[in-house]
C-alpha cells in the first residue's frame, strides 16, 4: 500500500505503547487531483504533548481537520480512545460529536465569537456539556438554573486559569492578540477535552506573550491532564514543550521521534533547508 520509507516513519510515529489516546491509521485525503495527506499514521499517548511540524502546505491543518471531523479522508481511520470501550471512529463523525467525545481545538487564525464577551465565549464551550433544552430555558426550570450556576462557576475557574478574569466582560473582538489565543484555549478547555489540538497557538505573539503561552500549555497538560497535539513553526517553543515530534512534508510523515532525534534526521534537514517554503498554506 505505501512506500517503504513512509512505512518506517509510520512505525516510528506510532511507536507508542498500548495506552494510546488517539490513533491515526493510513489516512489519505485528496482534494480533486491534489493529495493533501498521504498514508499518514501515528498515535499519541494519553497525557503526552505531541507536536506536528513541517513547512507551509505540508498538510498540518488538514490533519487537524481530519482529526476533528471537519474533513472526511478518502482512506484510513482515526480512532479516539482505541483501547477503551467508548472508542470513537472520527472519520465521518460530525465535528460537534468529535468535540463532545473529548477532542477540542483552536484555529490557526483565532475564531472567536467576536460580538460576545470573554465570559460568554468561554460559557458557550462550557455549557455545550450541559443538557439544557429550550423549554427549560424558557420556563427557568430548577434544573436549568442549576446548570447555569455550575457552568458559571466553571467559566470563572477557567477565566482565572488562563488569566483573563479582568477581561471577563470585554468584547472578544477588542482583546489583544495574546489574550485572544488564551481565550480560545479557555473556550476549548471548557468543553472538557481529553485531547486539545492547538493550531499555531503562538503565531503572531510577542516573546513575552509566547513565554506565558508556553507556561499555559504546560499547565493545561499538568493541571487538567489534557493531552496536547500542537502545530507550531516556532522551533524553540516546540523543543521546550513537546515530548515527541512528527514531521510532515507534502502530506507524508518523513520523521518522528523525540526533538533531539528529529533535529538530526537528514530528511528533516533537507525538507527545511533543501525545499524553500511554498506559498500555499495548508487548509
Amino acid at each position: 500500500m505505501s512506500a517503504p520509507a513512509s512505512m518506517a516513519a509510520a512505525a516510528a510515529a506510532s511507536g507508542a505503547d498500548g495506552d494510546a489516546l488517539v490513533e491515526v491509521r493510513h489516512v489519505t485525503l485528496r482534494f480533486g487531483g491534489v493529495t493533501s495527506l498521504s498514508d499518514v499514521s501515528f498515535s499519541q499517548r494519553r497525557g503526552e504533548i505531541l507536536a506536528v511540524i513541517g513547512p507551509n502546505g505540508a498538510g498540518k491543518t488538514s490533519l487537524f481537520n481530519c482529526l476533528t471531523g471537519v474533513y472526511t479522508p478518502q482512506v484510513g481511520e482515526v480512532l479516539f480512545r482505541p483501547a477503551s470501550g467508548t472508542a470513537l471512529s472520527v472519520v465521518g463523525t460530525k465535528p460537534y460529536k468529535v468535540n463532545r467525545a473529548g477532542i477540542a481545538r483552536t484555529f490557526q487564525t483565532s475564531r472567536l465569537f467576536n460580538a460576545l464577551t470573554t465570559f460568554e465565549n468561554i460559557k458557550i464551550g462550557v455549557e455545550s456539556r450541559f443538557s439544557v433544552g429550550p423549554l427549560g430555558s424558557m420556563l427557568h426550570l430548577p434544573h436549568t438554573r442549576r446548570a447555569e450556576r455550575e457552568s458559571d462557576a466553571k467559566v470563572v475557574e477557567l477565566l482565572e486559569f488562563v488569566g483573563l478574569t479582568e477581561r471577563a466582560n470585554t468584547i472578544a473582538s477588542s482583546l489583544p492578540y495574546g489574550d485572544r489565543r488564551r481565550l480560545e484555549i479557555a473556550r476549548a478547555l471548557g468543553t472538557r477535552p481529553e485531547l486539545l489540538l492547538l493550531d499555531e497557538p503562538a503565531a503572531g505573539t510577542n516573546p513575552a506573550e509566547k513565554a506565558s503561552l508556553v507556561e499555559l500549555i504546560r499547565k493545561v497538560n499538568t493541571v487538567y491532564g489534557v493531552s496536547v497535539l500542537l502545530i507550531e513553526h516556532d522551533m524553540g517553543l516546540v523543543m521546550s514543550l513537546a515530548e515527541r515530534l512528527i514531521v510532515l512534508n507534502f502530506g507524508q510523515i518523513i520523521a518522528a521521534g523525540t526533538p533531539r532525534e528529529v533535529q538530526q534526521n537528514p530528511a528533516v534537514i533537507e525538507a527545511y533547508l533543501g525545499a524553500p517554503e511554498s506559498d500555499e498554506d495548508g487548509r
Partner: protein
Amino acid sequence: MTTISGEAVNHPERMASRSPAPGEGRYRALVRLSRNDDVRRFVISVVGGLVLALITGPEGNGVQMLSGINGALLHPHVFICLAVTVGVWVLITVRHHFARQVEHVSGRVMALPKAVLPDRRVRAGLWLALFAFAIIYPPTLNSFWQNVLVEQIGIYVLLAIGLNVVVGYAGLLDLGYIAFFAIGAYSDAYWTGMLPVHPPLHLNPFWVFPLAILTAMLAGVLLGGPTLRLRGDYLAIVTLGFGEIIQIVANNLQGVTGGAQGVINIPHFSVHVAGIKYHWGLSNLPYYYLILGFIVLALLAYFSLEHSKVGRAWTAIREDEVAAEAAGINTLKYKVMAFAIGASTSGVAGVIVASQIGFVEPGDFTVQLSILILVLVIFGGMGSLAGAVVGAAVLQWLPQFLRVHPLFGYNQLDLYIYFGAILILMMIFRPEGLIPSRRRRREIVLAEHGVGSADAMESGHSGGGLAAVANPEADL
C-alpha cells in the same frame, strides 16, 4: 426618456459630460467631478426625487404607453419630491463637511449600542410602560381601530416575534413563514370539525393551540431538518417553494381542506372551566387581550431563550459555524430548533385568526404575506424583540392610518413599493434596524470590518467559511 432630461435640467455638469470633451483636461475634470462624493450624492438625490415622484404620482395604465410615468413627471408634485430629496442632500452635505471628524466608523462599534439602550432597569421600565399602555389604551378606541389592533397589528406582532427567532436569532432566511400560519389555521378548522375530513374528537379551539403548536413545529422540523443542512440561500428558496406548495395543496385537496372555497363557521373560543363560562364572540377586545397574552408569553419565553444556552448557541452559529461546531454545538439541531420555534409561533397566530374570523381560504396565505412579515422584522431590527414589536406595530398601523387619512399621494396599491424600498434602504443605511439588538449591532459593524459573518448563510452543518468543507472533492 423623461428621466434623463429631467436629470439634465437639474444637473448641468452631467449634461456636459455626455457631449464630446473638447480637451483632455476638461474631460478629466469632469471625471474627477463625477467621483466627488458630494456631486455623486447630488445626482443620487435628484434621481431619488424623480423615483419618489413616480411612486407617489398617479396610477398609470397599459392603454396609453407609459402614461403613468408621463403623468407623474408632469405633475407639480415632482418639484416637491425633488425639493425633499435635494433638501436631504443639503443636510447630509452640510453635516458631512462640518462633522467629518466626529463621524468615524470605529467609534460606532462600542459607543452606540450603549447610547441607544442605557440601562437594564430603564429597559424593563419601558417594557412595563408599553405593557400597561397596551392594556389600558385599546378600550378607548372605536371598534374599527380595535379590529385593526387585533387583525392587522396584534397578529402581525406575534408573527414578527416568531420570525425574529428564525431570522434574527439564528440568521436563517425563511420566506415560507406564512405556511405555518396556514397549518395553524387549518389545524383549527380540522380539530373543530369544520373540514370535510373529520377529527377523532371535536375540540374547543383553545385545545387546538397545543395541537397546532405541535403540528407546526413538526412541519418545521420536517422541512428544516433536511434543508437546513444546505447553504443559507438555498433555504430561502426552498421555504419560498414550500409556502407555494402549502397554498396549492390547500387549494387542490378539495376533499381534505375544502379547497378554494375555504372553510366557514370555525367556532370562536370559549371557556367552560370550573363554573366559569366565557364565550369569545364577535367583539374585538377579548381577542385583543388573548393575543396580548400570547405576545407577552412569547416575549418572556424568547427573552429567556435569547439569554440562555440556546440563545448563545444561535449567536455562535450566526457568527462562525465552524468555531461553533468545534465548541461542541450541534449547529443543525439549533437551526432546526429556531425554525420550529418560529413555526409554532406562526401556528398559534393561525389558530387565533381562524377562530376569530371563522373563515379560512387558501388565498389568504400568499408569499407576499411572508415577505410582509420579513419586512416587519427587518424594519424593527433583526434579533431584537423590542424591534419586532415596534416595527410590526408601526408598519401595520401606518397603512391603516393612511387609509383613513391619505397623505401625499398615498395609495393602498403602492404599499409594497414602499416596503421594497424599506428593505433596500434598511440594508444599505441601517441594517441593524430601528431598535437594534446589541449583539446584532456589534456583529454587523464587526462584519463590515471583516470579522465574523453575522448570519448563518455560509454553508451547511459541518462547516463555514471554507468552500470545500462539506465536500473535500469540490475544491482546494
